[in-house]
């Protein structure tokens, strides 16, 4: 390879990583091409190794601190648990895939699958039984252990409370006699008052002492040994796996589409036979109806789709699609309006109050408003042409486009519209006067002035605005989905929060990373776009 081609590749690579915003890898590339190795090594240590070490340190800190913070819903999950949650979620997705395939399998494929799944099921069930008996044993042990620990405490508690009650009764008798004494002027009322005060204090002290023991008992009850929890989880995991396999068998056997179609067809054939055999007009009519009905049923069954359960990756896809739609809506509104604002001060003056008032409104409020408003457009969402159109599209058809998606997208749009609008207006209004003079000298028409001077000149700012918009939109969307239970990552998080199972916390943190990583990549894509339209190098801020 000649010197110049190497250089070309090197600078090409450097440019690419620079544009895509991964400038930290710059020294790595340079090092690979042997440019000033010591300097690059220092840079790598400074800007690549150190951050990595720092992140690892944070992870380590997380690992150490998390289990120490006990919440009522369990411990804060460690990175390992979050990773496990990610794996579980992926497994759930895989299971849905498997069931979907099973549902549609036919012929030999189905037979093979039955064999395979049955074999796996037998193993899993055996394992499950074993684990269950283990669990029972552990439960018994733990119970014995806890009872053993509690019994002396409970005894102490009973003794104490009995003693307290006895003492209290004594004090009360004492007070009564004092009261009698006071009534008959034999004792001083000050003594009685003091006695009552002492009694109150003593009762309080007694109650506190009881409470201490009670708390100890609760402490023991609330903290069963970790082994129990682990055994439960392990047993549940295997039982779930077995359950999944048996459900797969269902889909391969009774619930299988091809089987159901055959069954329906058989029925039609039988009905046809009946039609031929029938002699009375009523019987003929009935049989004919059966035939037609059977045919329809068979057709319908053949078109049936496996009703998938929403898994994390589905939610990711749907969220991405929603944010995309919302973002496009925002851009379509923001860019023309922003251009008009930038061009015409009157338009700007008209829109300023609207922008200023609505910009700070919380996405939640918008969500509720759109939820009410959008619903009215779709009285029959099942058969609405917009949704049937989307459902017929290849890639997004399976995402379940519905009014919920529309209002989530509208919420995203309304919240994302402002940065793009303001930036576009700014970009247009701050256009270089010299560029406008060029347009005037050339006597460009309004249209070419717009498309040849104004828009290109304001594009860097427009894209900077769009980038902010997309970031805002992504954040808003997750919140909107959580609140409205429109399918998407937000709903995933919300459902997990509502589930409140021992995996939920880890799942939420997992979702947090998914949201963050996707947000990061969306931002990178926007940087790429922004850079590709910016004419003065380095205008984009990474």
């Amino acid at each position, binding site marked *: 390879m000649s010197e110049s081609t190497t250089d070309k590749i090197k600078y090409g690579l450097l440019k690419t990583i620079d544009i895509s915003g991964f400038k930290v890898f710059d020294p790595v590339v340079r090092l690979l091409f042997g440019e000033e190795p010591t300097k690059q090594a220092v840079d790598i240590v400074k800007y690549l190794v150190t951050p990595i070490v720092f992140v690892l340190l944070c992870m380590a800190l997380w690992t150490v601190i998390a289990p120490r913070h006990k919440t009522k819903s369990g411990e804060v999950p460690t990175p390992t648990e979050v990773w496990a949650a990610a794996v579980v979620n992926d497994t759930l997705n895989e299971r849905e895939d498997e069931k979907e395939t099973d549902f549609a399998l036919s012929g030999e494929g189905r037979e093979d699958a039955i064999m395979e799944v049955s074999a796996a099921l037998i193993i899993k069930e055996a394992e499950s039984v074993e684990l269950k008996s283990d669990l029972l044993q552990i439960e018994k042990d733990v119970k014995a252990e806890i009872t053993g620990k509690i019994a002396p405490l409970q005894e102490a508690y009973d003794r104490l409370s009995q003693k307290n009650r006895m003492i209290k009764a004594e004090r009360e008798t004492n007070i009564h006699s004092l009261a009698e004494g006071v009534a008959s002027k034999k004792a001083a009322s000050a003594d009685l008052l003091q006695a009552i005060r002492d009694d109150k204090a003593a009762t309080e002290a007694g109650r506190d002492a009881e409470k201490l023991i009670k708390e100890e008992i609760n402490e023991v009850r*609330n903290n069963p040994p970790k082994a129990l929890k682990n055994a439960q989880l392990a047993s549940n995991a295997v039982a779930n796996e077995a359950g999944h396999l048996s459900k797969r068998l269902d889909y391969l056997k009774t619930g299988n589409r091809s089987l159901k179609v055959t069954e329906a067809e058989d029925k039609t054939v039988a009905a046809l036979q009946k039609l031929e055999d029938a002699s009375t007009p009523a019987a003929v009519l009935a049989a004919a109806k059966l035939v037609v009905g059977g045919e329809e049923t068979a057709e319908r069954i053949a078109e049936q789709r496996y009703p998938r359960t929403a898994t994390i990756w589905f939610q990711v896809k749907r969220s991405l699609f929603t944010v995309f739609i919302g973002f496009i809506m925002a851009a379509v509104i923001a860019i023309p309006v922003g251009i008009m604002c930038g061009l015409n001060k009157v338009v700007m003056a008209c829109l300023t109050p609207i922008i200023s008032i609505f910009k700070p409104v919380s996405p939640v409020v918008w969500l509720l408003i759109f939820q009410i408003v959008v619903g009215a457009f779709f009285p029959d969402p099942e058969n609405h042409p917009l949704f049937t159109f989307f459902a017929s599209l290849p890639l997004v058809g399976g995402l379940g486009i519905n009014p919920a998606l529309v209002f989530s997208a509208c919420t995203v749009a309304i919240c994302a519209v402002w940065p793009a609008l303001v930036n576009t207006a700014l970009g247009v209004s701050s256009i270089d006067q010299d560029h406008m003079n060029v347009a005037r000298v050339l006597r460009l028409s309004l249209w070419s002035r717009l498309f040849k001077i104004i828009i290109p000149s304001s594009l860097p700012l427009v894209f900077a605005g769009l980038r902010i918009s997309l970031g805002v939109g992504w954040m808003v969307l997750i919140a909107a989905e959580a609140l409205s239970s429109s399918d998407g990552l937000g709903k995933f998080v919300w459902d997990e929060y*509502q589930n409140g199972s021992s995996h939920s916390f880890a799942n939420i943190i997992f979702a947090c990373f998914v949201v963050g990583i996707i947000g990061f990549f969306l931002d990178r894509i926007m940087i790429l776009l922004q850079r590709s339209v910016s004419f003065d190098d380095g205008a984009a801020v990474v």
Partner: protein
Amino acid sequence: MLISYPRVTSRLLVLTCLGVLLLPAIGCSEKEDTTSTPDPSMGTEASVEDMGAATPSDPPPADMPSDPPRADPPADTSAATKAMAPLQLEKDALKFGFIKLTDCAPIVIAKEKGFFEAEGLQVEVIAQPNWKQLLDNVITGELDGAHMLSGQPIAATIGFGTKAHIVTAYTLDLNGNGITVSNAVWEKMVSNDPALDSPTPRHPITADSLKPVVQEKLDAGEKLKMGMVFPTSTHNYEIRYWLASAGIHPGMYTSEDIKGFTEAQVELSVTPPPQMPSTLESGNISGYCVGEPWNQKAVTMGIGVPVTTNYDIWKNNPEKVFGVTKEWADANPNTHIAVVKALIRAGKWLDETDASGTLINRVEACRLLSQPNYVGADFDIIKNSMTGYFYFQKSDKREMPDFNVFFKYYGSYPWYSDGIWFLTQMRRWGQITEPKSAEWYAETAKKVYKPAIYLEAAKRLLAEGHIAEADVPWESDGYRPPTKDFIDGLEYDAHKPIEYLNSHTIGNKD
């Protein structure tokens, strides 16, 4: 990288075009929705043919307010053994909504155990964030049907809250709720009533020991706050009943006060079930009435103590129903029957017992419900109440075989008397602002509860051999016999709603 203008502008043009395409698509919706709802009598012929005495021109779910009190059961039950024409489904891909509570079990079981599939239905079961959203989604058609609070179809039909005609042909379960108070309140209750200071106190626990706590708060110028799940939910009426039976005023609804705080000594506010434990933990409320697993969750988390279940407040009270809109029911009569068939089988499966009376399928049901897309709580927590036990404290595990009833005691039959009880409670607490006649109560219940569909489904199941003849009250007039199974011992006779209303001390009287 730099770029020349044609590329830039063309990118912009693409954006603009996309927008232009989208806008009319959203706007044109109004034109398209006028497609008339299919004639309800169409497509029902096959099912109607074999219905015996039922008038052939009427589809089963037709609204018949002028009916005699008898819920027109199929005249000839013996004909059930005869083969029936298969149902011609109007729709086979359905979406049902549910709230993450164990009493959605029949819907989940019908799906997971393949009962829906057996009817040729492909059903998606989708979790909803709260009861209002769920109802709205059913009304807009986003969902075909849903797991609903018994009060919801009634309230929607009479127009309290969102107005829509909702009908139900299936009661999902009986009982299943509990009232939990925070540890602090429980301690005070214990100190008010030493009998409660035991690992296993005597039940039922009334709100009598709560009264001083309420009074103490009132003296401090505050009100005790408790949570319930929805203004027209069973929980609202149950916790009100429990409080009122001890002389604590839970507050009245008026036409202005739609929060129900008027005259309240305890303020009851709405919190979605899954958020109950965290709301209790954060101190916003001092107690709540909610379905499972959220009472057991409080025990596991150690943040509260369930003091009573609704089984103690009213034995075998109706809890959730399966609701659909009237339009949906009219447009899909055969599908509706098929759905109810699947639900009946699921209910029966859930209540299946062995010779010793142990519920044999509940563990499997818990396993299914604990999947994250259903209830999602830990299997061990769900198992607590579903398998016939209930933890009142960690130390206090009791057998409650009837805590969740899905099918026993004719539990899944849509009783008119259940609807009337909810109506009386709505009137009692002022959600119904005007006095109503006894006939109005009966008619309204009939608008919502549709036993005819239930019986038609049951008849088919009997013919298919999935249920026994004794499982269904074939000859009932839709009214349960009068009962005194309440915590305060008052008698409820659905034929005399006004008298029942007037027998309470606290609340509206007509």
